[in-house]
């Protein structure tokens, strides 16, 4: 058996099988157990080495040939696989609590497998094609049931589809640069094409208009999953570019470009979040800010930036799950998610409202919460190069923090004498309680998750050195 078969084709097959089932809890259980097995396998099984269990002996080869090209998952990729599938478990396990398990687990598993294939395919530029396939698969997940597709969904499809030609064509130019590195004109053209391709893929300023639209019009939980999965894999894909091409990695302007783009995203996202009236849109802007932070980590050259980038992974996943879960619960029971319509909800939905505010604060980099240690590391890293950049970034953070305060004020504005109750189900309360604890513990003891990401930089041959 080969590693790509285990971590790509098997999940794809199971995803197809899960679509045939109807019981939400059974679907979620099967998906969680299967994803857990994949995570443990990634954690424990060595690749290209004979493994003997009793009388049986087998070897998990790292390569799989398909139509003359290869899917390769090497030993270095194991920790990344464990992290991706491990995070997917969290999303799948929570899904039944908001009744989205049926669509999310089956399509989500297929999307995860396709995006893992995107990271495994050689030549790695073909990843753009697999990412586009995953985008097409995510359309049924994002579309609001029984309604015509909204502008956010249409723009998501257009922007993600337009990214693919740019990246594929830049690959051809990059091959030309490898043969003739002195051709500055070619370098410039390739850089423009790569920049445009990744701007569309990562929803970089100003191509991010679809994110707040989508978080407003679709189910927050499924949007949360997509907005967690796609930017994460796209940044890994982008890191692959940097790792593969020396001229790109060593380009003097790269740091400035990444810093400018990152700051633009953090500041614009923060300012727009601060004055936003819709809770869904605030989550969208928070995702934009997080992408901005990821880009900023890449501007910090060397392994420092890479380590901080991986540090962001777990707090972001946890915060987004909590935020999306809370929003989905509130959306089901509130006429709209506009601030004026959610006044006093803390008395009826204490767990969901607290979860939403805590997740918001965690992503804003509030001390004592999970998001603080990586954000603090980014501020510190940026401060060593430019103080003005840090001030701008803090302004973005402040915007998100301000939005959390506004939301908190709206939630707590209950009429005098309104009784306290909790309409969340027992399962939802347990999930929120666990996540509150996790958000706090990760803020207080970030070193506990250190072993999860110390091996990750090794995925990149040059960047990880």
């Amino acid at each position, binding site marked *: 058996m080969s590693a790509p078969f285990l971590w790509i084709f098997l999940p794809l097959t199971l995803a197809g099988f899960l679509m045939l089932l109807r019981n*939400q809890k059974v679907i979620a259980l099967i998906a969680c157990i299967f994803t857990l097995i994949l995570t443990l396998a990634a954690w424990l099984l060595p690749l290209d080495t004979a493994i003997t269990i009793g009388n049986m002996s087998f070897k998990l080869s790292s390569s799989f040939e*398909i*139509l*003359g*090209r290869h899917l390769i998952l090497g030993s270095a990729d194991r920790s990344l696989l464990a992290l991706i599938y491990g995070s997917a478990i969290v999303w799948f396990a929570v899904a039944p609590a908001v*009744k*989205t*398990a*049926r669509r999310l687990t089956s399509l989500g598993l297929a999307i995860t497998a396709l995006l893992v294939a995107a990271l495994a395919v050689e030549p790695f530029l*073909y990843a753009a*094609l*697999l990412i*586009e*396939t995953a985008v*097409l*698969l995510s*359309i*049924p997940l994002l*579309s609001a*049931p*029984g*309604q*015509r*597709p909204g*502008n956010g969904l*249409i723009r998501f*499809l*257009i922007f993600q*589809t*337009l990214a*693919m*030609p740019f990246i*594929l*064509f830049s690959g*051809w130019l990059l091959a030309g640069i490898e043969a003739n590195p002195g051709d500055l004109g070619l370098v410039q053209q390739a850089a423009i094409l790569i920049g445009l391709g990744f701007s569309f893929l990562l929803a970089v300023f100003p191509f991010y208009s679809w994110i707040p639209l989508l978080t407003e019009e679709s189910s927050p939980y499924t949007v949360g999953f997509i907005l967690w999965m796609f930017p994460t894999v796209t940044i890994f894909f982008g890191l692959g570019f940097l790792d593969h091409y020396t001229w790109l990695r060593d380009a003097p302007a790269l740091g400035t470009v990444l810093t400018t783009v990152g700051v633009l995203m953090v500041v614009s996202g923060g300012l727009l979040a601060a004055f936003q009236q819709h809770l869904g849109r605030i989550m969208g802007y928070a995702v934009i800010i997080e992408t901005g932070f990821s880009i900023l980590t890449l501007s910090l050259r060397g392994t420092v930036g890479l380590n901080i980038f991986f540090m962001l992974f777990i707090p972001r996943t946890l915060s987004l799950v909590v935020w999306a879960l809370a929003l989905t619960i509130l959306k089901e029971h509130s006429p709209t998610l506009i601030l004026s319509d959610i006044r006093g909800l803390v008395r009826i939905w204490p767990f969901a409202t607290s979860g939403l505010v805590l997740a918001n604060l965690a992503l804003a980099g509030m001390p004592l919460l999970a998001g603080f240690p990586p954000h603090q590391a980014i501020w510190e890293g940026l401060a060593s190069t430019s103080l003005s950049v840090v001030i701008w970034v803090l302004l973005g953070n402040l915007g998100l923090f301000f939005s959390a305060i506004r939301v908190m004020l709206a939630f707590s504005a209950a009429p005098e004498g309104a009784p306290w109750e909790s309409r969340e189900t027992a399962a939802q309360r347990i999930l929120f309680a666990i996540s509150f604890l996790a958000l706090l513990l990760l803020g207080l003891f970030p070193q506990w998750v250190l072993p999860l990401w110390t091996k990750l930089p090794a995925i990149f041959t040059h960047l990880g050195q």
Partner: protein
Amino acid sequence: MFTILNWFALLIALVTSVGLLLHRDWRWGIGLLAIQYLSIFWLVQTHWPVSMAASKLVTGWMACAVLGIAQLNTDPAEETEVSWPQGRLFRLFTAGILIAATFALSLRASGWLGLGLPIAWGSLLLIGMGLLQLGISAQPFRVILGLLTVLAGFEILYAAVESSTLVAALLSTINLGLALTGAYFLNMPQEENQ
């Protein structure tokens, strides 16, 4: 002989892409797209073996069939789109500008990429027309037609530099996926009770 046929394929691409922009009737849209794939097939086969280039034609026609069947099940009342700009004259004017701009661009691109002028122009023209379609309409059916046209233009250009079977297969999957997405948009299902 082949050069003349390339120019003829370009002419078909031009007429069909402008037609796609002007006609509001979905039957015309699908018919023109199907004819457009003939020109795409011809322009791609100048760099690929005919058997592989035929995959573009088959995939394109399959996409047209999927969209056509989906449209048959749609309520015609929902097709109208109230948005600016709607005027046929405006669209014709912008198409004219685009034809001129892509011609100027293709003169440089053909030399740079080492392609014949009809191939470079055909490719850039389809990309431009597709983008224009995306720019002036938010109707799902029109958006899918626009995306398929942009991809068709790109595929002509990319065929000249890449001949991998895996890429051809994945591009076909994406074209079909886009058509299925269009069909899904048109017949957005009522959510089953979970």
